[in-house]
């Protein structure tokens, strides 16, 4: 069952904005990896998740060791952004030249941008920054795909599907299904699997 993964540890940061389902996504991801035999530590900052703040989960995936729930600066291997400037915010602090970035391209505007006091960088600028600060990066329209499915919050599962397709982590559809099966009813499971597949499709 245990897929091949580099012996070394992986540091993954999943970031987004309150309400995007960040916590659920990181726990689903971690659940799959625990079942696959890894020691996973998740550090979550979600106390303010209900109030439009940034939400960040640090996933430490290790063959054998409990790690600090906070990844040291500059040591993220993978940054997954449910929101593009949140991905950039994280990358600028936790990234290094070999970091890989996978981000949703749908902005959630901070209140300072809405009031006009701050500005939100264009997608072109964000993409260029991703390229400068990572080994490889990819932006996908996860929210768009989720809206097509009728529920924007599914974008988190779409991102998991997309991540599985990258092969960066030893996760696949079967593991996802098993993990979701632990908590979801049959109809909800079907919707989530559909979202997972949509994520896979976006990466093809």
């Amino acid at each position: 069952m245990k897929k091949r993964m580099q012996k070394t540890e992986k540091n993954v940061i999943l970031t987004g904005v309150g309400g995007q389902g960040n916590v659920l996504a990181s726990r689903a991801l971690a659940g799959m990896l625990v079942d696959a035999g890894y020691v996973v530590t998740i550090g979550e900052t979600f106390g303010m998740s209900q109030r439009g703040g940034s939400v960040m989960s640090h996933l430490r995936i290790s063959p054998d060791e409990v790690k600090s729930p906070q990844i040291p600066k500059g040591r993220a291997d993978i940054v997954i952004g449910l929101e593009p400037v949140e991905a950039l915010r994280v990358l600028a602090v936790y990234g290094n030249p070999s970091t890989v970035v996978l981000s949703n391209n749908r902005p959630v505007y901070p209140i300072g941008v809405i009031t006009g006091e701050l500005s939100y960088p264009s997608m072109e600028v964000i993409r260029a920054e991703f390229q400068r600060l990572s080994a490889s990066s990819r932006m996908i329209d996860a929210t768009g795909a989720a809206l097509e499915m009728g529920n924007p919050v599914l974008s988190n599962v779409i991102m998991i599907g997309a991540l599985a397709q990258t092969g960066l982590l030893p996760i696949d559809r079967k593991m996802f299904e098993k993990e979701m099966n632990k908590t979801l009813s049959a109809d909800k499971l079907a919707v989530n699997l559909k979202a997972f597949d949509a994520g896979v499709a976006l990466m093809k």
Partner: protein
Amino acid sequence: MSKLLVPASSKVLFLGNEAIARGALEAGVSVAAAYPGTPSSEVIESLASVARERNVYVEWSVNEKVALEVAAAASFAGLRSIAVMKQNGVNVASDFLLHLTASGTRGGLVLVSCEDPGALSSVNEGESRYFARMLEIPLLEPADFQEAKDLTKWAFELSEVIGNVVMLRSVTRMSHASGNVLCGKLPARSRRAAFRYDGPIMDSQAGPMISTPVVAKHLLHQDKLQDAVALFEKSPFNRYTGPARPDLLIVTASACSLYAHEAVEMLAVEKRVGILKLATTWPLPPKLLTRHLQAAKKILIVEEVLPFLEESVKILAAGLSADIRKKPHFGKLDGTLPQAGELNPDLVAAAIGKILKVKLQKLPASYAAEAAKASALVPVREQTFCAGCPHRASFWNIHNAIALDGRDGFVCGDIGCYSMAALSPATGYSTMPTLHSMGSGTGLASGFAKLAPFGLDKPILTVCGDSTFYHAVIPALINAQHNRADITFIVLDNAGTAMTGFQPHPGLPVSAVKETVPAVDIEAICRAIGAEVEVSDPFDLDRTSKILTRFLSEKGRLKVLILRQACALSPEKKGKKRFEVAVDETLCVGEACGCNRLCTRIFRCPGLTWDRTKKKAVIDEVICAGCGVCALICPQKAIVKTDLSVSPS
């Protein structure tokens, strides 16, 4: 089956708080009580979800003091019980806690305090560890998820050994972090309750549960604590890793021990640094400490937030041989680590690096420069009221009433999501200049209202949430009425303890385990106190504003306005839009005189954004919760709402 009930030997991913709950279940806990507070709430939520299967009585209590009292009753009757709270909750419970430590306990009683270094979701980063020292009870601090479970289980046993309450302290980075846990056995049977009180007064098992004779019981209490120390000396939860004679000994506990391990790894100084991870941080086991202090050249104490452990180590060292006393001790007292905010691996690595004169390998300078440039492009994301939040509308009404009144009235704030009204980014109309503990807004308002003879003659308002009302506001409200404080008291009733995740409270007809229970009516309480009470929907801007304007103009008495509208994230509302909202671009005035972006510049709902190219307001369909309030404030009626609850015929 709930994850919490997996069979022994299962390996599962648990949130720190779930691990604590599982530990309590493995210990055979019978009663669990708490008041919700981040980062503690998941302990009771987890227990509530399996209450029926495991025959546990679980309640959300009205406040932390009552929670501890409910748990203590079970203990007195021989059952194992747990009371859970966040750091400042211990302050609320502390008066009872003082007397409880004096009377002692019977069944294992564990007080769990989940603390929030760095105030990630609090308005304080208070410490409750000092209560353990002050009230002379054992303090346990788990350092990973397995320990969170195991130490919790052991805490019940320890409590029964010493006949007193045991405090287990977690922090956000434990409680809200997750990791692998290997589960143990769940007991097959639960205990029967029996309360004996007919024995001699000094009989801890059969006498009355009282604190007198005070001095005799105090001495007994202190004796028993020595039994705990003896157990701590041999406890497997206190662990040392590192060389036999380290250059540097790190004494640490809790999440900080994970930071310390990570920092040592980052610096690759495993051969020079030893880590003594303590799970029993008060009272310290002196022999264990002495052994390790002797072996090391230098000592660094790593903890959050205040130098509690450091002080204990130094007091211990002061009584030891001169060569130990003279060893350099680093920590918070000498400024090696900060005495405020939370720690992380980087801060600890920097401290170790400084002491050992080792440099941390850094990223290439060019990358760091690029990263700094990228950081500058990223807009700050301030907290704000959610799209569809009733508080945004409530404070709109409050602000307007104060402005119309024209006497510079102000609002004494309280603890809840609505605390954000104290922050200007949340809305363009902040009116809340004070913010302290739960219920303090009403007490402060009651005081401000008495300052007119001294020259402060302004309308005084105060707000509190529905849950806060029961927790701590009622005495302050009675005080205001009895002392004729002219205040306008506003209950922001959003039908649940929204901030911490919709735990029910006494105003709702449902218990922690989803049973039907009597609801205690806020309106009836306020009327019984003798206040004039009005109830309104904050989304009804017209009516709410009129009531508030009238209240501010009518002097000399206590006035209560209950603003009822469920939280936008509440289960009954979440994902369901009442209105489809859209902006008619032909009517939107935008930045021109006549509007100047009232909606986005002042009202500030995340679901209503500003299209800089078109210079028009635009609804973000992904974020908009469909409350329709923005349609009411748009001066041009350019925001159009369609009622989705009315099906088109």
